[in-house]
């Protein structure tokens, strides 16, 4: 691997434009940038906010491990992953995965792979805070998130 992935866990929002600029600055060989942004949905207007909890230390190291594995599988130029924690309102960003490469195929696959494994391996948990003021319920893990891993085997 020719680079060190940028991994941040933070309460604040991120700026996708400046993250792309940081990834591509001075990288004359970069022809493709793929970004995935995960947003908080409003669940048909019923959701007031998500509360995001994580395992400090392990969350960063798992994301870094996944990014390094992606860089072993595809010729990536750089990777940035930012995951927000704390209270996140509908419409706000939750997570950013950005991957660069010389060509588009590697950038698409790398970003998609990182996102799929982040879902299943990175220790974050979401709680839904409903608009009717009831204390929230923890989001259940989805079968489709495990199914999504099959494409990479």
């Amino acid at each position: 691997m020719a680079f060190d992935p940028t991994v941040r866990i933070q309460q604040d929002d991120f700026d996708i434009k400046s993250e792309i600029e940081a990834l591509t600055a001075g990288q004359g060989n970069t022809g493709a940038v793929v970004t995935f942004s995960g947003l908080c949905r409003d669940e048909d207007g019923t959701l007031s906010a998500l509360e995001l909890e994580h395992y400090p230390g392990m969350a960063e190291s798992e994301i870094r491990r996944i990014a390094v594995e992606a860089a072993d599988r595809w010729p990536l130029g750089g990777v940035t992953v930012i995951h927000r924690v704390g209270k996140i309102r509908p419409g706000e960003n939750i997570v950013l995965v950005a991957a660069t490469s010389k060509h588009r195929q590697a950038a698409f696959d790398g970003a998609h792979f990182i996102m799929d494994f982040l879902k299943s391996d990175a220790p974050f948990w979401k709680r839904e805070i409903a608009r009717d003021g009831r204390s929230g319920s923890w989001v259940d893990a989805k079968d489709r998130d495990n199914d999504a891993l099959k494409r990479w085997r």
Partner: protein
Amino acid sequence: MVKMVYFAWVRERIGKSEEVIDLPPSVETVADLLSHLSRLGDNYALALDEPDVIRVAIDQEHRQHDASIGHAREIALFPPMTGG
């Protein structure tokens, strides 16, 4: 002596986010640990009611339930992850 850390509804049901516990020599694997904990009180029993669902990390690395605890310094218990 091992540091236990709990997250999400495991943390809520046990009622604490971390603690240091003494493990009897009979606790060799993750599965042993879960059944040991579930006998410590109703809160543990509730949290670990469906042990198959519980995910475990030893020293911040994912481990299966048949893994040996060995010289673990920190063991984390949590539900399936729902980040991203």
